[in-house]
């Protein structure tokens, strides 16, 4: 049966998909976060909300935040203060536009998909600066500056590793990139693939201000850094949703770029029967697990250690990897 929709209707459907899937995903992601963290720390995590092992915990948290009073500091810049969470959150939503769930299941298959992703992902930095500056709180400002510095520093490893992948695939379109991948995914090219993957993971964690790169939002340091003055729904949208949805988005992107997206893990007959969606979700779930696992394992880096790590190690390494990838393409087998 063919459904004939006008462009407008298609647009609305697409918007609705994103607007439902992403928040629901963020809720589930938040619950997974609490439970995984708890069990890794030999405890139980949420157990009461909703009855069975606290499945409704994040939902309850969201509802609680909705009840909170919306406070804007008297000397804050009202318009900027109000817009900052939106500037942070909307780009995260937009990230989901180009992630392919299956060969034909993609909201918008842009030819410049990867470029679009990286560009949109950087807009968040502005939002953070807006939030910090407009709070009229010098500690929030310090947090905002730290955060912005961190985001800028760790953009490069992400961009460069994604660029290396695009070089290997020969296209910026995400679907093409997935199609170009074959078993064994990140292990190819040997060494380079794994290093690129690690670079991407570290950069992604810093982009999302996840520990060990969470200095800007560390409680004991700056309360919540740029978001110190935010309460209620602004806080949730700007901070929590953004972080969790961002995590899911990056997990999806990582799957697409490095793990083979919707392709089966091993090109083995019986496994091909399973639809690509399932593979995509399995791989994304693994990526989320990995991101969280790293998050729970390590203490945070100090701001200067963080910057040093990025500028003195990760970026030179990623530049070197670009060189290596280029060499591999030109002179290596196939490519």
């Amino acid at each position, binding site marked *: 049966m063919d459904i004939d929709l006008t462009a407008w209707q298609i647009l609305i459907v697409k918007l609705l998909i994103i607007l439902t899937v992403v928040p629901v995903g963020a809720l589930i992601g938040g619950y997974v976060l609490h439970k995984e963290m708890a069990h*890794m720390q*030999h*405890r139980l995590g949420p157990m009461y909300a909703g009855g069975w092992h606290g499945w409704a915990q994040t939902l309850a948290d969201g509802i609680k935040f909705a009840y909170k009073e919306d406070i804007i500091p008297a000397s804050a810049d009202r318009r900027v203060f109000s817009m900052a969470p939106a500037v942070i959150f909307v780009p995260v939503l937009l990230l989901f536009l180009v992630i392919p769930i299956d060969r034909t299941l993609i909201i918008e298959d842009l030819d410049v998909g990867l470029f679009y992703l990286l560009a949109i992902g950087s807009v968040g930095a502005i939002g953070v600066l807006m939030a910090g500056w407009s709070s009229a709180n010098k500690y929030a400002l310090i947090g905002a500056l730290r955060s912005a510095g961190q985001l800028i520093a760790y953009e490069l490893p992400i961009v460069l590793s994604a660029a290396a992948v695009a070089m290997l695939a020969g296209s910026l379109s995400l679907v093409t990139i997935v199609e170009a991948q074959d078993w064994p995914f990140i292990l190819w090219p040997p060494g380079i693939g794994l290093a690129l993957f690690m670079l991407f993971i570290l950069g992604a964690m810093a982009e999302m201000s996840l520990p060990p790169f969470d200095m800007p939002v560390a409680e004991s340091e700056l309360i919540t850094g740029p978001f110190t003055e935010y309460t209620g729904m602004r806080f949730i949208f700007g901070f929590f949703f953004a972080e969790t949805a961002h995590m899911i988005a990056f997990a999806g992107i990582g799957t697409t770029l490095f793990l083979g997206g919707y392709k089966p893990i091993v090109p083995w007959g019986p496994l091909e029967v399973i639809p690509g969606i399932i593979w995509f979700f399995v791989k994304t779930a693994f990526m989320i697990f990995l991101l969280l*696992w790293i998050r729970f394992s390590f203490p945070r880096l100090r701001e200067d250690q963080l910057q040093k790590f990025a500028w003195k190690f990760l970026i030179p390494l990623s530049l070197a990897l670009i060189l290596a990838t280029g060499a591999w393409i030109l002179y290596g087998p196939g490519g």
Partner: protein
Amino acid sequence: MALDHVDERLERARKPGFGIGLLKGMLVLLKHLFKRNTVIQYPEVKQDLSPRTRGVIALKEENCTVCMLCARECPDWCIYIDSHKETLPPKRKGGRPRKRNVLDRFAIDYALCMYCGICVEVCPYDALFWSREFEYAEYDIRQLTHEKERLSDWMATVLPPLELEEGAELPGQAKPATATTPAAPAPTQGATAGTPASTSSSAAEARPEQVTEAPKTPTAVPEASKPATAETAAEPAPETAKPTEGLKEATEEQQMDASATTTPEPAAKIDAGGGVAQEGTQAEVEEATAAETPAGPTSSAVTETPVAQPPAPVKPTPRPEDLEAPEAAYTRVVEAQKEAGSSPQVAEARAKVARVKAERALTQARAATPQQAAADPEPSGAAAAGEPEPAQGPVAPAEQDDPVPAQGPVAPTEQDDSVPAETGDEPQGAAEPAAEPQSAEGEQPEAAAEDPEAVYERVLAEERSKGSSDPVATARAKAARMRAIKGTLGPADG
């Protein structure tokens, strides 16, 4: 050169490779992710608390002599005690009026209490006990000051004392340097048993041995001889409170001076009257401290002495079907307690006690049923009857001193047959021999004819077979031996 291998190992340990340490850290978390979780989800699930858990502190009022030691030693000053002295009429005509310290108020402020336990430790009369209860939070801080009544209620939740650990020195075991006479182990027991009462009793023991302490000995003797005879004589209950009290007073004052005294020479102990009296005292204190149930020394001393119970009317053995079922007892008590307004923990504890008593009564009734017809001595009857009544202890070599009265109304054995014998009174003991068996063995040897050592062995074996704990068994055996030595007749004496 010599330590090169150590250096190498240190180097290797220090540099496991780049990032390996990070990976190891991550692996630890992964391991825990898949491990079985051991979280105890309070309040749905409660932890099994160790018996030595320090929860609330309970007060056994009858043991408290208002010495104020607990209030004084409490680092927080959270114990509030009020008392006044009363003068009681002299016990005998022409005696002096006796003063008694009466407890008016005993309160522990749990808002201040730091649960250090110094008060429990320091109380010389075992009036304070640890309980495992901790769920008594209040909305009003003033409710956290527990008064006498509430503290006594908490006694229901106190556990019976723990078994001694393996390798612990028992009171009956002789120390290497001192065992020379049959009575030798006695003085050393006090030193090894851990309570102040027994320590002071060993000190009490020490006193008469310093023969020079003549003034103390005579006072100790008449008071101490009271318990000795009390054990064997029929006396109403109030009487026995006095010897215990007298003993405690004696030991208290002796304890003060006893700190510098040396270990007594056992041989010197057996001076004619004093030594034996002290022995009896010792035995009684041994029993008292050894059988340290939450009932406390006083009541166990009371139950020790077969005479302790007032002449009780004979109760026919209840039949099993007439008795209350344990579960019914439990629910009945829980309801009654709730009506009375006790806290849940106390209600539960009392109900459990009622249930246990009902079970025991049932067991005894069942054991007694087949024996209703039999008139012979039955050790099994002794075993059944012996359990709830530690007071059967003093195994008198037959005569009229019978443990029968000690069993009180609960013992079912042969009660139907020996109805005339069942009065709790010693004076009637004369008719006994046929009714003997209970705690007494099957035989009715004449006390004087039996060798004291044989008496000792016999009683010890019997107590052990009944399941008494070692300190209790040895104490009773010794008491029996003493009576054999002295040729004391039964309860009719004194």
